[in-house]
């Protein structure tokens, strides 16, 4: 870490540590990863805003079917990510982040049209992204969406609100195990 140690002052690190769910070592590690996305740019200016195309080079995101959504959710400006955006993202995806934080971001990631509701179109989108090349048959897809709605949609409005999503996630323990990056 010696190299990146000098990038931040002790004070900055303290702040970052206080404001994220990461320890200092992890923050430096995050910075290292950030730097590895575009070594030249970041070395020149550590607060540089990397374009989305660079960010999605990150191994975890590269293979993630929701990468565009994740970038959209965490980017403060919509067209790229600064180190702080990146840190923010890594903090949410870290082991230390509490479940409710993760749930909130997951909700945003799965909410493709951004209307703060997970509708059946969103669900279809999610499932399509999840299954990748092999798609479910139309009947199966509808059945599956119907199942989910039946389980989760408590007020019968054919969409999942955040409260409903949170409720269903609390019953889906796999979520916390999977919604994280290894530091």
């Amino acid at each position, binding site marked *: 870490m010696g190299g990146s140690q000098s990038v931040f002052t002790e004070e900055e690190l303290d702040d970052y540590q206080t*404001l994220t769910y990461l320890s200092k070592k992890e923050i430096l590690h995050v910075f290292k990863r950030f730097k590895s996305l575009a070594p030249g740019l970041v070395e020149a200016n550590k607060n540089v805003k990397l374009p989305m195309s660079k960010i999605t080079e990150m191994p975890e995101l590269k293979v993630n079917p929701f990468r565009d959504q994740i970038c959209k959710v965490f980017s*403060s400006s*919509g067209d790229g990510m600064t180190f702080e955006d990146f840190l923010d993202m890594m903090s949410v995806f870290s082991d230390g982040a509490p479940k409710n934080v993760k749930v909130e971001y997951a909700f945003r990631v799965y909410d493709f049209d951004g209307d703060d509701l997970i509708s059946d179109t969103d669900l279809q989108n999610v499932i399509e992204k999840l299954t*990748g090349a092999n798609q479910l048959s139309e009947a199966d897809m509808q059945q599956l969406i119907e199942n989910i709605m039946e389980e989760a949609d408590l007020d019968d409005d054919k969409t999942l*609100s955040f409260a409903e999503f949170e409720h269903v996630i609390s019953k889906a323990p796999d979520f916390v195990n999977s919604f994280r990056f290894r530091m």
Partner: protein
Amino acid sequence: MTVKNESLIANPASIEIFISTIESPQLDDNDKGPCPSSKLSILFAGQAAENLPISSSPTRRARSPTGLVRPASPPARSVTPMSPVASMQCLASIEELDKSTSQDEDDTSDGTFEKRERHGYLGHTIGEAKQSPLNLDSSVEVYHCKSSLTVSSVLPERRHSATDAVSQDQRNIVIGNSEEALVYLSKDGEPLVQSAHEISSSSKTADMFVTAEDYCENTPRVIVEESSKSQRRKRLVKRRSGLRSLEASERSSASSESDSDIAVEAPREEDEKHRGSKKRKKQEQANQTEQNRMDARHVLMRHKILTQKSVKASGIVLLEETRRKKVKQLSNFFSNVAYTLAPWGKSIRDIEGYHGAGVASYFLFLRWLFGFNILLFLLMTAFIVIPMSLIADTQLTASNNSVVKTSYYCGLNYTVVEQKGVSYLLDFIQGTGWMEKTLAFHGHYVSNLSGSYNLPLAYILTVLACMLLSLAMMARYTSKSFEAALLNSIDTNFESSNKVFGAWDYGLTDAKAAQLKQKGIHYDLQSEMMEQAFMRTRMERLENKCAMFRLYLARTIINLFIIFMLGAAAYAIVKVTSWSTSYASSHADDSGVDKWLLLLIQYLPSLTITACNALLPPIFELVVKLEDYSQAFIIKITLIRTVFLRLASIIVLLITLYTEITCGPTNECRTTVEPDCSDIRCWESYFGQQFYKLVILDFVVAVIKVFAVELPRKVLAEKCTCGLIQKLGPPEFNITSNVLDLIYSQCLIWLGLLFCPLLPGMMVVKSFILFFVKKLSAMVACPPSEKPYRASRINTFFMIILLLTYFLCAVPVLYGIFGIHPSRGCGPFRLLDYMNEAIENAVQEWPLFLSNTYDLSTSAAFSGTVIILLCMIIYYLNTMSKAHNQRANLLKEQLIMEGRDKQFLLNKLQEQEQKLGKKNEASPLKKVEQPVAQASEKITQGKQNPRSNDPGEGSFSPPHVVDNPEW
């Protein structure tokens, strides 16, 4: 009145009206500027305030994805210049608020989520701070009450100034509370404001912050130019606070989303056709409400941070503050240390990237065991092994004390044959010969009751401490997931959602693994669909009595078959163990017997157990297919059977050993005199040897399995094209059996701890090597599995198994301590009748009071009391949990009811609109059952149609670009 109308007019963004305090409801008649805003935000800054801070909320703010405020670009902002007094008041009120919420607002000391929960969301607090917000949206604005019931204030007619809004007759304001009757207010300005105020003051809405926020934002560009540091803090604070406030706003918006859907938006570009715009509108509106709520919090927080130095904390508050910071720093420090110390981080990351979280959890568990055994090893070494090696030369001598004398002669009787050459190595593997006379085994330890260091006492206390520590560490390690598991177990009707929302493993980094994962998810979802179909067809099939009978017959037969196999395995273990012990003891000194054969025979019990563990589970997996269970149940029942086999084999081994050592009458050295029984001179060491061998064998098998089975299979599957091998395919990293292996090895350590103090050390070495071997297996031999692995579902099982295993291990160890006479000729307890006498003897030397207390606490009377007390606690907790369940159900019902209320209100609203029926005849009457989404759509359209015909609309400023990248 402090509102500057020019600013309102100049401001293209928003504001329609503003209203003054309750005492003096003044309405600014001049404010009839073309106000495109959908939002009317009115802030009553306390009853006492003379100069009312009034501001509008910026209507269209880019919704930052993180839910954080981005400063809006100037044209989009609703800048309402404040008089200095007003802004002062704003700040004052905020400061007041800060004080009231100082505990959780202080972000620099990291108010955690939970803390925040205590206060509910901020709106609550504000309400208490005598702020009464009234936010009159152009059509609907939703207030979120403390009770999380929805109050909607509806202004059906939008695009009017406040004055109009209040004075015009047809403006009905519906303020609905889902639990109470609907309140229709209005017609008249004053009652409206008053009642609205009343209600809004009771409904602690977070919207108030919007206004407060704007205040701060509008005041001299937020007080000062901050240093880069405070900017940074600010930004990040915003981030985290965003998370939190999101919760609050989500909660309110969750119940109100459909309301805000209808809340008709600010005018859109006229040329934009209404059909396509619904969605965006909805989104915008939702964004805005939420954004505003969040913005407010951020500003409060920012303000707090900016003025932090001037905030005076004193007394207990200060003390608390410093203490909290210290604790935080300390925990940060420890997490830093832990991060540095935890080995193999990168390896685990790689594995997770390749295989996903399930396999990684195996390696995490392995690492945890590694660390845990280091701890046990250090304890055992520090308190037993090192003291023993220091006092090793103090041997017992013949003395007058009869017990000591007997022990001395028995000790002379207890000899081992020390051999050289190959046997030297063989002895090492078997723990016999020279090995038996080392610090590794119980028998070698001496009883120096007279010395300065009471070894027997230290020995027994350390072992007990290790067992307790194990329990504590396990509880700590598993409690979190256990909680989650218990939570999950309440109802499991969320299969589909879990499969979809928890499906993607965000830690994956390998492209191929990701592809496989997608394939796996597809497979999983499809198989779930098929499973449902299967269940349906099976139900139909089982209508037929004959088919049902056949199925149950098959199941019974298979269960009998499995019980038979378990019985056979147990029988084999019993037979082999007793035969091997008697053979070995009768041929121990016989140099004629082939050493290697002897080794094999010595190892036969361990081999039998291992063979059973290796061979039977595949058979279980085969036969279960005949039983026609559902897929999920197949996994469970196979796991249960496998676990049963593992535990049963250990139990059988223990029972066999126990019968061996208690076989027949004993002499004064406490060794058997019965010629039929095997001659065991020192049963403690004998026990230790068994576990020593099992540990070694377990390790060897694990390594061999990787190098002799998995790697060749992988190579064959790649190179060979012949049918059978292709069908077999490359090996699969079976998490279940691998974790069971680990639990099994830990079980051996617990059992052997008392008799072989260095076992934890062996386990440390073993798990260290095993990590790399298994990594090789995972990264090279086994391709990522296509079958998705549900970490959580199996984790519950693992935890139960781990605890069960611990219990199973603790019972024999405790029985050994309290129930069996130690050998006279060996071990630290050779002079005692029972091992626990070491403690009792020590207690006798304590002051009378303490020893009496000890006696009392171990007496039957005391334990009876404790048992009764425990029963009462269990009863209490049981009642509590029932109550909690009920409460959870109630809350769930409430959630459903709320949804219905929402629809009901919407319908009311619709009717209201129909009554008004002024410009929206086109809007069809909605049925009660009609979904909310449709309702909102219709309302939206109903609102828009007339607007587009209204020439006055042209004066509206164009809407702001929502996703302005500058923000």
